[in-house]
């Protein structure tokens, strides 16, 4: 198998050994290994030594660091240069991935999926979400690996490219718009069949949840609020049976 393809495939499992000491470094070392096979024995061992040190990045962009570092190793650059490059990529790859994927593509695809689920069917919503999200996901993974491989030590150029900047500029607003649209549409569909008073009750609970998460008790949000709210409803249901 082509070493670049092998690394691409291995990046799909890069977080399997995530730990609090070295984060994803063990998975990253496992992923970069096919690209380092061409190195002379001594240089290979040194490269693997560097590869197992602390490392973290967005999982979809980790391929960029792997291929850029491997390219630099293969070019015979000093070990200190490789170490610095590897270290310098941690923050930008995390930041770009978080802004583009977690704060942009993900909410956008989920929002659209929820709207389709409410307007067409949950199956259609799930399929729409999966297709939209994974087109962006696999495009990112493939682009990242190739960009790192082509740019090598100059990989920062890929991260400051116009396309990526524009992508980050539009991803957040699209995600926010899609979720904003999805919340009332999905909420309205889920509460269909209930009276207007009941729907107003749903909106009140929603506002209460936002107030708790934003101002009253920020640590008490989402899951914890939901569990407690369900328990309160259970008790009230018993009391007024």
């Amino acid at each position, binding site marked *: 198998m082509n070493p670049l393809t092998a690394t691409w495939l291995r990046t*799909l*499992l890069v977080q*399997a*050994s*995530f*730990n*609090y*000491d070295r*984060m994803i470094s*063990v998975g990253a070392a496992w992923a970069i290994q096919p690209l380092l096979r061409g190195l002379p024995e001594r240089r290979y*061992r040194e490269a693997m030594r*560097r590869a197992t040190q602390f490392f973290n990045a967005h999982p979809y962009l980790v391929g960029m660091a792997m291929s850029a570092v491997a390219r630099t190793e293969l070019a015979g650059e000093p070990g200190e240069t490789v170490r610095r490059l590897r270290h310098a990529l941690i923050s930008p790859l*995390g930041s770009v991935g*978080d802004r583009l994927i*977690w*704060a942009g593509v993900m909410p956008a695809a*989920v*929002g659209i*999926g929820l709207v389709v*689920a409410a307007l067409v*069917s949950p*199956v259609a*919503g*799930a399929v729409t*979400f*999966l297709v939209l999200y*994974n087109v962006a*996901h696999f495009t990112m993974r493939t682009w990242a690996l190739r960009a790192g491989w082509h740019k090598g030590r100059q990989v920062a150029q890929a991260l400051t490219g116009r396309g990526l900047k524009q992508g980050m500029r539009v991803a*957040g*607003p699209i*995600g*926010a*718009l899609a*979720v*904003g*649209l999805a*919340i*009332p*549409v999905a909420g*309205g569909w*889920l*509460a269909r069949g*209930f009276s207007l008073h009941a729907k107003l009750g*749903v909106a009140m*609970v*929603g*506002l*209460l*949840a*936002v107030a708790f998460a934003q101002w009253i008790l920020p640590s008490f949000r*989402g*899951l914890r609020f*939901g569990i407690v709210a*369900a328990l*309160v*409803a*259970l008790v009230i*249901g*018993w009391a007024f*049976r």
Partner: protein
Amino acid sequence: MTEQFGLLLLWGTIVGLDLASVGQIMIARPLVAGTVAGLILGDPLAGGTVGMVLELFALDVLPVGAAQYPDYGIGAVAAAATAAGSPGALGIGVAVSTGLIVAYVGELAIRVMRQANTTDVRLHGEELDAGRLRTVRSVHYRGLLRDLVRSLVVTLLGLGLAVVTYRWAPTTLSGALLMTLVLIGAGIGAASAGIIRVVERGAVIRWFGLGLVVGVLYVVVVQ
């Protein structure tokens, strides 16, 4: 559910692995996990509905770095198993509650698993520092195996809880309906708070507001 138990167990385990360790193609999103579990059980509407409610809760999560996050995917599988066959809105609240509890158990299990990975890495620190491929491989594969076991065990617990709540849900008729309404509201609140926290900046929050206004208008006019 008895006939489909094996398939649900397999699906839940795959969903648990997708959360972080394998692929992250997002079959672990509750909308997908719940809908597919519903399809397995022959009730995609119930699975999809609880998946949608849990998806609203999941929008509260930003899975960055070493952040701890609930396992809503396996939660959605357990919720679908609880909701399947229940009459309409009656089963949704109880099912989503089950899903939230399983998601929380999944979160605790992730913490335990990552701690075990950390111990493993510390035990083999010298060999890793030496760049030994065999150690890299074995530590990595053990991490994968741990997540496989975690996903399997959490799914098993989730399906067990689903059977218990489906048969002996400790709630009244009015309580079940109230739970449904309260959890839809809590999900809406969680999604709103989540996106507000993610976007933070002024210009982007206006897009969220615009979407909300259009969505509310659509609901008021059409529904």
